[in-house]
């Protein structure tokens, strides 16, 4: 297996505020890594680091063998907060098409028929084809989230970074997206932040718990002690529909 993301003793500061401390993490190709952790734990910062949007204050970082910002076009990124210009005169199609733009042929660039077909297909897969001509700012939260997942997917990236990609989605769309991700995972490394333990348990191949530093990285099996460490307080694990694999036997639980 080759390593696609390699972090060694990475610290990230925003001014004086430390967001990540001493992160050492290797992510293998074709992994499906779930990242959990409390609010403000640095999950989004970790994804931005891999995407090349924030720089390590110290330590070393490689993505696909080069420094993070030198891998354009190979990394798809769906941010948690959309810092885009909502009033911009862009339709949904035009928004998703920008995922096909690469830095190499910007001069007199035109989107090809192949680009347009790829966008059509991804819009159909994600169920937003009917919205294609809507102005992007008019979409609902969940529709917007699907449009931006589509924009990342048309890039056909080697690594897909998803920051709480299904936070606004209804249950149906959620499981639809996860089954799509599962398919994509056959040829794409996926790194996903989520607060949804159910999802983490049933879809990811490995798990990282992050609260400024990495508390755990390994198979997706959670224990109370570990979660207590990460979240700083006992966490209610027993959510409806959580498969048992995540939860090793639980002493206090009556029907375990």
């Amino acid at each position: 297996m080759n390593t696609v993301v390699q972090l060694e003793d990475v610290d990230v500061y925003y001014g004086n505020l430390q967001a990540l401390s001493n992160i050492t993490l290797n992510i293998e190709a074709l992994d499906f890594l779930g990242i959990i952790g409390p609010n403000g734990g640095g999950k989004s910062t970790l994804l931005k680091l891999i995407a090349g949007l924030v720089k390590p204050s110290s330590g070393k970082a490689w993505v696909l063998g080069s420094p993070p910002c030198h891998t354009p076009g190979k990394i798809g990124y769906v941010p948690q907060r959309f810092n885009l210009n909502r009033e911009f005169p862009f339709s949904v199609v035009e928004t998703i098409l920008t995922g096909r733009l690469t830095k190499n042929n910007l001069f007199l660039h035109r989107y090809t028929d192949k680009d347009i077909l790829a966008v059509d297909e991804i819009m159909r897969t994600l169920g937003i084809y009917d919205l294609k001509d809507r102005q992007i700012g008019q979409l609902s939260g969940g529709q917007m989230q699907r449009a931006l997942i589509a924009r990342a997917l048309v890039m056909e990236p080697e690594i897909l970074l998803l920051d709480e990609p299904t936070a606004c989605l209804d249950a149906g769309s959620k499981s639809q997206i996860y089954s799509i991700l599962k398919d994509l995972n056959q040829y794409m490394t996926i790194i996903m932040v989520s607060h949804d333990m159910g999802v983490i348990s049933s879809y990811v191949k490995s798990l990282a718990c992050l609260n400024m530093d990495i508390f755990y990285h390994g198979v997706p099996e959670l224990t109370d002690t570990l979660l207590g460490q990460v979240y700083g307080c006992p966490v209610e694990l027993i959510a409806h529909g959580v498969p048992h694999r995540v939860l090793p036997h639980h002493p206090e639980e009556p029907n375990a």
Partner: protein
Amino acid sequence: MLEALLTYNFLQNAFFSAILASIACGIIGTIIVEKKLVMMSGGIAHTAFGGIGLSYFLGIEPLIGAMGFAVLSALGIRKLQKRTHISPEVVLGMLWALGMALGILFIAFTPGYPPDITSYLFGDILTVSHVDLLITVIMNLIIVATIGCFFNAFKTYLFDEEFAQVIGLPVSWLEDLTYVLIALTVVVLIRVVGIMLIIALLTAPPSIARQYTNSLQSTMLLSTILGIIFCSAGLWISYALGIPSGAAIIIIAVTTYFLISMFKSPTP
């Protein structure tokens, strides 16, 4: 009017310069409105006045000095913005006034009779010279060629800077370029509507156009057409009634914007 236009050279210059100004204005004005750089553009325009003063002092072509000041202040504002944590508005406000102050200072130091600066402050399209026209043509070519050649890159950058960076677009370079193009547009517009009135001609056409279209290309195109209409109408009124052209153009543009916005059914 048509007869006069065919007869008088100064009217031909004025008309030609109105059309060129409208093209620059339609393209860059749309970018300014969509990227919310309206105040920034006002600031760049006002610092250009310092360049005009300096040109009089040195005895060179005023628009050349204006261009130097506009481009340098545009890039300077960018640098300062990145470096300091103060809100850009604050820096902008200071540069805005500093430009005007320098202009007045240079003019006061200029020996001899004080030059007529009102035509630079409020525009006078009827006095556009051949040199002005030549400068305007060159600026326009630069603006249209730059945006035209890198249109998709600009669109992506204007829409979502973060994503543009992730896919490896030269975001910082595109940003610099945008600011420089705004500075060049300012230079094109100085003779037409003047430093004080530029903001309205940059913003009114795209704001009207945006109510009728949802694509960047058509916003730019429609803004250009609207600009040509406003500028020609202003030019005609100015010639016929003998009132200042800049004022006429701006009053027509802004009044049209308000009338259209008022009679349009409100969108939720």
